[in-house]
Structure formats: structure tokens, C-alpha cells
């Protein structure tokens, strides 16, 4: 036991025999870890930002809709009023209330929006203005006018800037929306020119720009009650109820709870992975990209450690020869070398953590500003926030520190073995 203590002490002294060299080495290894943490933070941050924005342009983290809607996207499939009130009631109870950030019932249909200039096929979304503000990102992307307000007259409409340009609409302009009333499937067929075509005059109260052409040229938002009246839907029926959660990770949990609560109703409860398969795939791609980048950077950091430890130890044959001549056994020499490498790694990791986490913290709060990329000035709309916020979970930090530590430990065995095998007369030859 005293032996081991002695060896640790020798290792420690060896380390500080040349403090400048040791600190330099520790700094170099530490910088490797710091850069690993910084790049992981930026990659993970970008990943989470994509999810957060993606679900808020779509139906949220979890969506409840009539059974079969996802596959058929047939607008006649509606949620009965009592299901909606059941969901809203359930979300007010106990634990579930704390994980839900917003709940928005929506009615969706297709229509034709016309002005004297032109006309365009549109996707009509009926929302409760206040509720949708808590779920959707569109209210935050208004470029002119305002988002719908609850005291809006029934005729207010919010449209995208692409559509506004195409139809030559401005704030306060009027447009005619033509829709077909929604009939439950199986009821009598409707002729194209039948009485079931409804039209109504709307007044533009706001224009948004998301930068996503599919939304900006296509989607129009009207108050839910107006949409229900226009589509001949009895009060309370909607297409879907979109939920935004505080944490994305709770999505499967909330979906399961809702499925249980709504057992027996003809509904489907989907998480964003199911309702937005495209987004899930993009993230899969992004994940694969991050995976490769992580692999590359780990390999590079690992090689740095390998070089450093090999270089530190393999050059010291003379010193090991002297130690051996003084009576240190090969096993003790090996323990000493491993101990020295581990102590060095521990110092490096501490330095790296302090350095990496401070830079990471800066990128997490102030963000990494990528606006310089746009040389010709910032484009009027960006789908992506040009400021990238770093995000690093504790698990990720533990993961990277452990991997780096494990690499250092494994790598230090080779020079330890070499040191133990030092051939005495050969090693003591002066260079």
C-alpha cells in the first residue's frame, strides 16, 4: 500500500518537474476536450432548434385528429365537439398541465382566394387567435399588420407575403374566399357547381413571412368561428387539436396519456415524428451528419492524446533506466507511467471543462451569430434563426469527458508496457 502511495507521489513529482511542459501539454489536451464540447453544443443546438421551429410551423409536438386524417388528409374527417372538450379538460388536470405549453384547436380546409388581380388555391386554417399564438410560430413572424385578435370581426384574415404579392393584397384589402362545405364522408355527393360552394368577403388584417414558400404562398388564417361558419361545420367541431410542450422529450409520454384518456373515441394521437415524417427524416439526416462529425472530432482528439502521451513517455528511456537501476520493478514502473498519464489527463480534463463550458455558455446565451455569412445583407426572411444557440445536456458532457478519459487510460497502457520493458544497459547509454 505504501508502495502505491510512493508511486503516486513519484508520478505527481514527475509531472511537476517541468511545470511549463506539463501545463502546456495539459492545455493542449484540455483544448481538445473544450473544442469537442463546443462543437457538440453547436451541433446539438442546431438540431434542437430545427425541431422547435419545425413543430411550431406544423401541428405541434403532439396532435389529436380524427382517425385516418393523417393518411387521407381528407378534410371531411372532423373531431367531435365533445372530444375537443374532453382533451381540453384532461390537459388542465394535475401533472399533465405542467408539461403542456399551448393547446390550439384548428379547422383546416382548402379554398380559392380571389381578388380582382388573380386567384389562388389556399389552405384555410381556422384558429382561436389567443390559443394559436401559444403554439404556432406564425404570429411571431408578422411583417405587416397584426395577428388575429379575439375581438376581430369575423372577416379578418392573415396571409403570407407570397400570397399577398401574387394577389396584390395589402393590409385592409378585400378578397373573396370560396370554399366547399365539409360534408361527412358517405353523405350525398356534392356537385362542383352545387349550392354547397360558399363564398365570403375577407379583409386582410396581417401579413406574415416565414421564408417557407409552402406556407407563405399557401396558408391563410381566419378566426375559428368564421371558418366553422364558412365550412358549414357545427360549433365546436375541428380538424385537429395541436399541442406544444415545454420539453420535446415529453412527446411520447403526453401522446400515450392522451390515447388512454381518449380510448373509444374515433381519434388518432400522433407525436411530431408521426405527424411530420418529413421533419423526422430531416432530423435523421442531421443526426447522421452530427454523428459523423462527432466521430471525426473524437478521432482527432484521441490521436492528439495518443501523440502526447507517447511522446511524453517514449523519450524518457534514460530516466526509466536510472529508475530501474535504483531498483524499481517493471510493474512499478508501469504503474508510475499510467499514474502519471492519468494525473495529466485529469488536469487536462479540468482545464478543458472550464474552458469548454465557458465558451459553450457564451454560445448558449449570446449565441453564435452567423449573420456575417450573408454578405449581401440579411435576406428579408430566414427560415432558420441566423443566430445559432449552443445546447449541451449534462449527459452529453459526462459522455464526452468519459470517452476522452477512457481513451487516455487505454492509450497510456502502451507506453507503460514499453517503460516496463526498458532494457537497462541500453537505456543508460548517453545520447
Amino acid at each position: 500500500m505504501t508502495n502505491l502511495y510512493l508511486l503516486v507521489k513519484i508520478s505527481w513529482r514527475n509531472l511537476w518537474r517541468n511545470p511549463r511542459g506539463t501545463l502546456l501539454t495539459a492545455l493542449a489536451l484540455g483544448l481538445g476536450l473544450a473544442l469537442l464540447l463546443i462543437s457538440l453544443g453547436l451541433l446539438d443546438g442546431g438540431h434542437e432548434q430545427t425541431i422547435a421551429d419545425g413543430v411550431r410551423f406544423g401541428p405541434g409536438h403532439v396532435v389529436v385528429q380524427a382517425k385516418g386524417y393523417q393518411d387521407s388528409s381528407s378534410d371531411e374527417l372532423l373531431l367531435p365537439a365533445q372530444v375537443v372538450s374532453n382533451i381540453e379538460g384532461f390537459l388542465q388536470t394535475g401533472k399533465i398541465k405542467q408539461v403542456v405549453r399551448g393547446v390550439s384547436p384548428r379547422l383546416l380546409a382548402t379554398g380559392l382566394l380571389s381578388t380582382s388581380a388573380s386567384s389562388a388555391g389556399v389552405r384555410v386554417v381556422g384558429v382561436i387567435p389567443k390559443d394559436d399564438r401559444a403554439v404556432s410560430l406564425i404570429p411571431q413572424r408578422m411583417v405587416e399588420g397584426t395577428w388575429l385578435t379575439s375581438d376581430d370581426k369575423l372577416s379578418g384574415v392573415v396571409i403570407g407575403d407570397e400570397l399577398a404579392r401574387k394577389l396584390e393584397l395589402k393590409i385592409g384589402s378585400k378578397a373573396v374566399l370560396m370554399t366547399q362545405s365539409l360534408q361527412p364522408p358517405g353523405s350525398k355527393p356534392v356537385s362542383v357547381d352545387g349550392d354547397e360552394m360558399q363564398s365570403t368577403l375577407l379583409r386582410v388584417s396581417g401579413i406574415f413571412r416565414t421564408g417557407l414558400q409552402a406556407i407563405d404562398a399557401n396558408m391563410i388564417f381566419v378566426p375559428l368561428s368564421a371558418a366553422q361558419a364558412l365550412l358549414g361545420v357545427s360549433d365546436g367541431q375541428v380538424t385537429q387539436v395541436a399541442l406544444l410542450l415545454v420539453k420535446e422529450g415529453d412527446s411520447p409520454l403526453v401522446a400515450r396519456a392522451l390515447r388512454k384518456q381518449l380510448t373509444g373515441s374515433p381519434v388518432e394521437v400522433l407525436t411530431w415524428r408521426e405527424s411530420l415524417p418529413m421533419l423526422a427524416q430531416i432530423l435523421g439526416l442531421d443526426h447522421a451528419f452530427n454523428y459523423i462529425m462527432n466521430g471525426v472530432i473524437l478521432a482527432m482528439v484521441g490521436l492528439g492524446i495518443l501523440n502526447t502521451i507517447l511522446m511524453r513517455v517514449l523519450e524518457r528511456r534514460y530516466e526509466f533506466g536510472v529508475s530501474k537501476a535504483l531498483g524499481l520493478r517493471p510493474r512499478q514502473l508501469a504503474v508510475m507511467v499510467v499514474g502519471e498519464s492519468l494525473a495529466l489527463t485529469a488536469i487536462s480534463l479540468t482545464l478543458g471543462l472550464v474552458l469548454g463550458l465557458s465558451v459553450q455558455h457564451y454560445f448558449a446565451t449570446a449565441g453564435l451569430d452567423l449573420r456575417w455569412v450573408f454578405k449581401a445583407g440579411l435576406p428579408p426572411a430566414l427560415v432558420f434563426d441566423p443566430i445559432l444557440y449552443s445546447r449541451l445536456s449534462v449527459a452529453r458532457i459526462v459522455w464526452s469527458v468519459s470517452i476522452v478519459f477512457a481513451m487516455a487510460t487505454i492509450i497510456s497502457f502502451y507506453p507503460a508496457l514499453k517503460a516496463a520493458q526498458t532494457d537497462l544497459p541500453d537505456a543508460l547509454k548517453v545520447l
Partner: protein
Amino acid sequence: MSGGLLQLAWRNLWRNRRRTFITMAAIAFGYAMLLFVACLMAGLRWQMIQNGTCLVMSQIQIHAPGYYPNRSLQKTLGGRKGTDVSALLASISADRRVSAVAPRVYGYALLSAAHRSAGVELMGVVPDQEPKITTLNTQIAKGTYLTARVPKGVVIGDKLASTIGIELNSEIVLLTQAADGSMGNDVYTVVGILHTGLDAVDRGLVLMSLSSLQDLLHLAPTRIHEVGIKLSHITAATAVAAALEVRLGKNLPVRVMAWPELAPELANYVQFNHGVTVVLFFIFFLVAVIGVMNTMLMAVYERTREFGMLMAVGMRPSQVIGLILTEAAGLGVASLVVGATLGVPLLWYLQVHGLDLGGATGGVVSVAGVVVGHLWYGRQDFPAYSQAAAGLAATALVSALYPAWRAAQLRPTEAMRKV
């Protein structure tokens, strides 16, 4: 003397092969990794542009001034009289950077089938010319692309088909306002169903032959809205567009737009992505630099005793520094060559076979209006390769210089006392 210095440096490198090998590994492996990352990142950028333009849009579009983006039916090339289409296409192809051209006509219509209807965008193309500039013909999920056999055949997106409830070979009615103000309507047969993964196309586009769309819209055969162009090298798009606008403008009022103007969303995304990858590449570069720096510093520092000996036998400090720098330079260049040699098969593989991300994505993905396959191809980025090489070589020299300079400051006896 300098011949002697070279010889000495050469011998030193071979004297302690292990040290030389470790240093070489740090530089070569770091460089190979940087090559790999630069190649993948350039590939991602190129693939985004390529895929974003090749599906429907094409790399350059020529319109009558004022046609884009409102796509007013009347604003055909050459105005109401139209223009000699084949002469125009020939004149565009005269530019050697142009690899293919195809004319197009657009319109809007109400599509109805059975008891449902939807507003759609009509795109009229020449079935045997369009596939030379875009790849929509490769995205047919069911049935076939437009053929001359079925002149009134249409191809529609799968989401439109399922929303309206139509199948292959169903008949549909297209109702539109024609160019002369009358209502045009006619019956068409669905010959193909598309699946691109892009909502705007899958849900809202109807593809038909140029001549049948001209018939529906009551447009004369001389009247087209657009010419799509594919180039041999997409990087030249903006320059070619500007040149074409000047040249064609002499005979016909035209507006020529390259893809960054046609798809600012894509251009934004490409630029944003470029920013992210530049930052990442810089971080990777720093990691490589630190590895090289640390290895070099230690390799030279450990030889202080040896340098003391050299100075004791009469070598001047400046000569010692010269010797070390010569060694470092030689080692650096050799290592970069080794790194590049390791990297070349990797880069070749990335460019030819691509990296298969199929497991992670499960098929086709669209990002910012771009369809991305599951294969990620590399693309050579020689400026990045040479910058990385220069950076690593400079790092190797500077990190050798510092301990060498310190050793040269010592008196020989002091230097020799260091172990």
C-alpha cells in the same frame, strides 16, 4: 554548409524513427481528417444546390420582363405575338456553357374529379426535352411520365391524387380562364402519379404536354412563358444568366434569372449552411493544429540536451535553429504528402459512392424545398485543402521554432544538463 545542414536534418529524422513517425502521424492523420470533412461539407453544399434546382425549377429561367413571379398568363415571351420558339432555343444553346434547354407554359386551373375539386398549377412541358433539364420524370411512383402516345395525358402528385380521390387512368376535368378571356375546359387522363416529397409539387402541380396546355389556354404555338436551362457547371449560373440577358435582349425583351434569384429560400439555406460548416471546419482545424503543435513542441523540447551538445562542438545557435526548422519543414511536407495519400482514396470514395445514410433517414428527405437522397456525396474543395495544408505546415514550423529558439538561448553546458 547548407548542404551539410540538409544532410544533418535528414539523418536526424531517421535517427529517431519513432519520434519522426509519431510527429508524422499527428500531421498526416490530422490532414486526412480535414480533407475528409472539407470534402463532405462541399458535397453537402453542392448537393443542396443541385437537388434544389434539378427537380422542377432548372438552373436558369428566361421569361418576358414582368412575368416572374406573378406568372400572368398574357406575359409570354415576345408579348402577344409570341416568338419563334425553335430559333430562340437555338440561340440560347449557342452559348457553350449551356448543356440543355426546354420551353414551358404555365397556368392555373380548378381540377375536378368525381365529387371533389382543387386549385392546381399547370405546367406544360415538351416530354422529350424537359427530362434533359429537370428530373421530375424520375420521380414517377405509379404509371409513366408524359408520352406522345397519350397527348391528353397528365401527371399529378400523389397527395393531390389521394385528396381528390383519383387513381391512375382516371379522367379529370381542368377548368381555367384562357388567354382570350373565355373559359377553357377539357377532359384529361391521369397517366402518371408523382411522389417527390415536396408538398408544393405533390399537392399542387399538374404536368402536361406543352401543346395540350397551349390548346387549353388558347395560346398560339409561338407563345411560351419560360425557357428552362441546364448548364454544364452550375457554379457559372449567375454569370451565364447575365450574359444571356445581354445577348438575347438585343432581339427580344427578356429577363434571365439564375437559381439564387429564383429560389432565394434555397440560396439562404445554402449560405446559412455554409456558415455553419465554416465554423465547424475551423473548430476541426484548431483540433488538428493543437495536435500538431503539441507533438512538435514536445519532440523538439525533448532534444534540448542534443542541441547543447551540438553547440558545445561549435554549432552556432542560428545554425541549430536552422537545422530544426529544416527538419520540421521536411517532416511537415512529407507528412502532408502522406496525409493526402491516405485521403485520396477516401475522397475518391466519397465522390463516387457517397456515404450511405439510408439507415438514419429511411429514404428521401426534403430540406428547405430540396429533396435530398440518403446518399451523401463528397465534392472536391481544393481551396480548403490547400488552406488546411498551409495552416498545418505553418503550425509545425512555428511550434518547432519556439523550443528551438529557447534551446538556442541556453549556454551549451546548461542545455546539456537537461534530461
